[in-house]
């Protein structure tokens, strides 16, 4: 793995955005996540890597309480965003999810127009007061997702009529439109071709200036390219977490090293 291109990393000291302590997740009898402690920084891209089934998606779904929608899932432990316990009874998961956006593995635009796809979040949360403001939100979101130039003349076309890569950027625009503080991405490029992947990766790097981005990926090259910090999961444990450069060049745990060099996976 010498071909990993480790980008220069500005090791600024950003504040902690998310702190997780002792997170355990059970699906029925299955213990999927065991005692995970992690601090995720603001305005940073954090990558979760690990063999499939090790609990990356599960942990990601804890951060916006999407596990609440899985009937068998039970989450224990303490997860705070800006110091607020998100599993507190007073926290409304609906409002939390407006603040913690999510992009899925497969592009899932709604069967509505491109405009309505992006406008949906702001509409249900009442973020705009009139049509002009909504137009502005839609435009800035599509610009942030680097999609505006391609779709500005066809905003009323169905979102499902776009290509795969465009659909995924539309989903990013949709998530960005509610002005979240954290953006969770679960293998956002696994259904995309290399060109679309490169576009989305570039986009992720841009988004870092405004959000804290957490990305699950099965490609170590991708983790190396886009992230500043990397967490390695294995069999439900968080094995190693640290600066991406260190994880890839100088892993402390033998399991991380075997995974990176391709011996487990």
């Amino acid at each position: 793995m010498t071909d990993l291109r480790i980008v220069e990393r500005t090791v600024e000291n950003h504040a902690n955005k998310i702190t997780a302590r002792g997170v355990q997740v059970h699906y029925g009898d299955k213990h999927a996540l065991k005692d995970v402690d992690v601090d995720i920084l603001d305005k940073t891209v954090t990558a979760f890597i690990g063999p499939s089934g090790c609990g990356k998606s599960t942990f990601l779904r804890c951060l916006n309480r999407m596990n609440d929608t899985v009937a068998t899932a039970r989450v224990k432990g303490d997860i705070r965003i800006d110091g607020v316990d998100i599993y507190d009874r007073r926290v409304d998961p609906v409002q939390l999810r407006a603040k913690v956006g999510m992009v899925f593995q497969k592009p899932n635009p709604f069967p509505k127009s491109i405009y309505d796809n992006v406008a949906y979040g702001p509409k249900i949360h009442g973020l705009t007061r009139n049509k002009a403001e909504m137009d502005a939100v839609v435009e800035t979101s599509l610009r942030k997702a680097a999609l505006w130039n391609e779709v500005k003349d066809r905003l009323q076309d169905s979102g499902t009529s776009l290509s795969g890569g465009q659909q995924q950027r539309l989903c990013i625009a949709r998530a960005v439109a509610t002005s979240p503080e954290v953006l969770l991405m679960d293998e956002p490029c696994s259904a995309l071709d290399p060109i679309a992947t490169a576009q989305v990766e570039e986009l992720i790097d841009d988004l870092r200036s405004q959000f804290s981005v957490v990305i699950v990926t099965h490609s170590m090259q991708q983790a190396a390219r886009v992230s500043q910090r990397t967490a390695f999961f294995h069999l439900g444990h968080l094995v190693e977490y640290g600066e991406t450069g260190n994880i890839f060049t100088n892993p402390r745990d033998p399991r991380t090293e075997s995974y990176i060099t391709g011996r487990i996976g």
Partner: protein
Amino acid sequence: MTVIAFVLLFSAACLGYVLNLSAARSLRAGGARLHSLGSFHGGFAALLVLVPTFLFVVLWLVFQAPVIDRMTMAALPPGTLDGLETGAVQLILAEIKSIAGGRIFGTPELWKLAAADHLTGLRALSANLMVGLTAALALVLLVIARRTVAPDFRARQGTEGIIKGLMIFCSTVAIFTTIGIIASLVFETMRFFQMVPWHEFLFGTTWEPQMPIRADQIAATGAFGWLPVFLGTLVITVVALVFAVPVGLLSAIYLNEFASPGFRRIAKPVLEILAGVPTVVYGFFAVLTIAPALRSFGEMTGLPIAPNTAMAAGLVMGVMLIPFISSFADDALSAVPRTLRDGALALGATRAETVMNVLFPAAIPGIVGGVLLAVSRAIGETMIVVMAAGLIAKMTVNPLDSVTTVTVQIVTLLIGDTSFDSPKTLAAFALGFMLFVVTLGINVLALGIVRKYREVYD
């Protein structure tokens, strides 16, 4: 004798299978490389014997009766049937047949007894002939099949070809039956329109199909305007849908999105039971429960409510349609991929918002298709309206009035002594034809909508 013929042909087929199989095996044992497996050689022989012989027996059984009848009547002493109408001739034939069957009433003429004897003889001859010919045919085919066995004979293709032919035949049976039904409907409708002008039927607003049966009878000449009847069908359908669509949709949404798995496990089978209740039972319910309830409600409030109302029939029909609509909507909602639901929830949409804004629009084509199919069921439904709606055709859209429907009128026109040459009975075919046209149109529309707007999720 028929049984013997069938036993014969099936054993011949089995024999063919065994013969060809063993012939093929011995060829292979002799060192030849066969193109097809032995079982294909056997199967080819079995099918080659079975299909033509079976067809022969069936055709013989179908055509022997009319041929024998003809021959019996032709053998009567000359001049017996002179000057008799078809009806009288039929009567004589029936009498001869019942004598031949051993049921003798009174003392029949001698020539009838002779004819009955002749008939019995012909029948025995026919049966013997059938068995003999079946055996001969099977034997010939057996020999032909046996001679095909050769190393490079493509028995597999032959067998598959015959089986494919059989499948094509089976799949066209339904199509030809449909064409036959439509043809007879169209034919009778044309006869009706020769007696009653088509514009009178299509645009007339009075429906009084009573016709004088005898020339000296005093009765109206009959009016055949189908509009009031069709209006009755429409009123009942609308009542049924106004009730069934919201209830069915909401129950589907609840079951699909909000209900606990336990509740769903109980509620779904209950809905399915509702779909399995015979409509005649719904009819009882309408007559015995809903109609009296409506009546006493009318007495309480002073509303004029007829004893038989479109409302009662429509409401009960609505109950009948609920499981239909709800299962369609449930399927359509379940077909919306989970990723869409997750996408909406992850944006911070509530459950209800997710259902209303994302799942429901995505499921609309399926739901509309289901509703339109429910409409065509409501239009064609007969038993409930026969029992609960009235018989008098009125140009009214008041659901509290008594109305009649197309199906009810078809039933009443065809009940009792009917001869198929008066406008009264032929009108039933015209109504049936219109019903067919309307429901066909709705079904085509439904399929079109479902196909056009269905989102393809991969």
